[in-house]
């Protein structure tokens, strides 16, 4: 177990390094710089600013310097929002994103598995058909379209929710709906097909032949086995929800990490772009790692490390 995590950790560092390098190059390839604005800035001042942030040096030098600072845990300061450290900015805006993300993930898993199970239990009946039609719609409508539709009908027309902002618990409803629609649809389909497979498996027959009551068979034998494919999807789903939240936060005017990320790119705020990218990267990798570990707990056939064979 420990060895498994350590080796995963090593790979995480490697992929993080690749992520940093590629992002760094791509970011520099965007035309413009942090100090351009509508107002014409005199060239001498621009020159001065570039020199201050070290942007006048050759690319490889900048890159090495950035890596050096990073190794010391220094993400630098924002080039646009004066005197604000990148890590402070990230931590300061992470709160709403984290809450939104966690709620969306929990809602996706619970609702998705619930729908999938219902569909499997009422296979080829009305509930199944309705759930699967919903799932197809959920999967094919992009989250930003859904977000605008929700805003228009539920906030603008019906007036139940507010269009923008994240001030009360009720304000979470629309963004969470928009964020979790796709994962719910995906999980529902996944859960349905794997539950169906389990329901028709021989060991369920064995459980029945033991005289166990149906609810016990469901709980002990069906759900745990049926849930396994869903667990593998939780890693990618986290990615899905995080990238989704970049757009959704923008649409709902939520001042979270996603919003900072988007504005940092349009501002060419180099240090902030790098900081947020690395932060997202780490979250995704940790989510993957946790998925792997959870999978090993649910399925005893999977061994994380080459432990002793029983």
């Amino acid at each position, binding site marked *: 177990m420990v060895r498994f995590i350590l080796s995963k950790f090593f790979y995480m560092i490697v992929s993080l390094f690749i992520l940093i390098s590629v992002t760094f190059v791509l970011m520099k390839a965007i035309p413009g710089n942090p100090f351009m604005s509508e107002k014409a800035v005199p060239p001498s001042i621009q020159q001065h600013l570039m020199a201050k942030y070290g942007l006048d040096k050759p690319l490889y030098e900048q890159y090495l310097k950035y890596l050096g600072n990073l190794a010391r845990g220094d993400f630098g300061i924002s080039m646009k929002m004066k005197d604000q450290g990148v890590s402070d900015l990230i931590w300061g805006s992470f709160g709403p994103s984290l809450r939104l993300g966690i709620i969306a993930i929990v809602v996706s898993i619970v609702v998705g598995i619930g729908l999938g199970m219902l569909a499997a239990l009422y296979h080829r009946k009305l509930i199944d058909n309705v759930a699967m039609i919903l799932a197809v719609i959920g999967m094919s409508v992009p989250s930003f379209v859904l977000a605008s539709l929700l805003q228009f009908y539920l906030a603008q027309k019906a007036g139940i929710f507010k269009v923008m902002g994240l001030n009360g618990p009720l304000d979470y409803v629309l963004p969470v709906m928009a964020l979790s629609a796709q994962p719910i649809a995906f999980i529902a389909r996944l859960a349905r097909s794997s539950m169906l497979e389990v329901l028709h*498996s*021989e*060991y369920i*027959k*064995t*459980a*029945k*032949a*033991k*005289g*166990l*009551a*149906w609810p016990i068979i469901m709980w*002990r*034998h069906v759900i*745990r*086995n049926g849930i396994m494919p869903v667990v593998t999807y939780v890693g990618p789903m986290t990615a899905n929800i995080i990238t989704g939240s970049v757009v959704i936060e923008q649409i709902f005017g939520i001042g979270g990490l996603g919003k900072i990320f988007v504005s940092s790119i349009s501002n060419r705020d180099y240090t902030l772009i790098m900081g947020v990218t690395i932060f997202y990267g780490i979250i995704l990798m940790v989510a993957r790692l946790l998925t792997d570990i959870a999978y090993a707990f*649910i*399925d*005893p*056939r999977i061994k994380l490390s080459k432990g002793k*064979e*029983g």
Partner: protein
Amino acid sequence: MQPILQVKDLQVSFQVRGGEVKAVRGVNFEVGKGEAVAIVGESGSGKSVTAQTIMRLIPSPPSIIKSGEIIFQGNDLTRKTDKEMEAIRGKDIGMIFQDPMTSLNPTIKVGKQITEGLIKHQNLSAKEAKEQGIEMLKLVGIPNAESRFNQYPHEFSGGMRQRVMIAIALACRPSLLIADEPTTALDVTIQAQILNVMKDMQKKFGTSIILITHDLGVVADMCDRVVVMYAGKVVETGTKWEIFQNPQHPYTRGLLRSMPRLDQKKNEKLIPIIGTPPDLIKPPAGCGFCARCDEAMRICEQVDPEVTQLSDTHMSRCWLLHPMAQEVKSS
């Protein structure tokens, strides 16, 4: 002998899109106390459906018990509710399935899979159930039962898993064990071991056994009586010796001819039964076997043969055994 199970005129159908598959079309047989009865027949002959109907394991719909009775210890199982069946399954009737690789839950420890039934039916505490579970593992011949108890199915070989299945099925000492092709998925040496375990258990607990198989060698090894099924009907039943030495139905004879024997000459060929079983959505009016039978007469196509009682234990369903057919033969 006192029968503990009597199947009377059982008819089971499946509702499918193309109509109704009449999988079991009037099956009669009984199982005595402590007796081992084999049900043989090729795939699709209705033997597994019969067995699973006794356990009421086939979901309904699509399956329907059209008519008939399954009298087990004086009660008709076809009239039981699902709740009542739960109290019988595992406790009074145990069942083993064909493929030990898939019939154990891969995510639950073997021990727990054995004790589940014990806890449900005998109200044992977890600790008592564990003791009995380990005892069962020892009985079916699993070495290091204590440590094996806490392992998962993937840590067991096929033969060992089938032993575990036997332990599960017999944990509550049922009076009847239904084994649905228990050795088909195993290789030959393991087959013999599994059959021995079953025989041991039968001796120890006095369990009656219904053994479903298409392996006549297994039948000879294990069973007292044989029920031969074809196209959803019992075509011949008798004691092991009656069936092997004096088979009366052409299908039974065909089965025996298509099986290799040790005393066979080198250049002697096996004779297969040519053709395929009839479509049970539209079962034939006459004998189900007549399309493949080289002794078929005109009446075989038109009228289903009656049962001919050849001895107290031996009966067959074939027109050739009718007194008139016998006359034609001898003349």
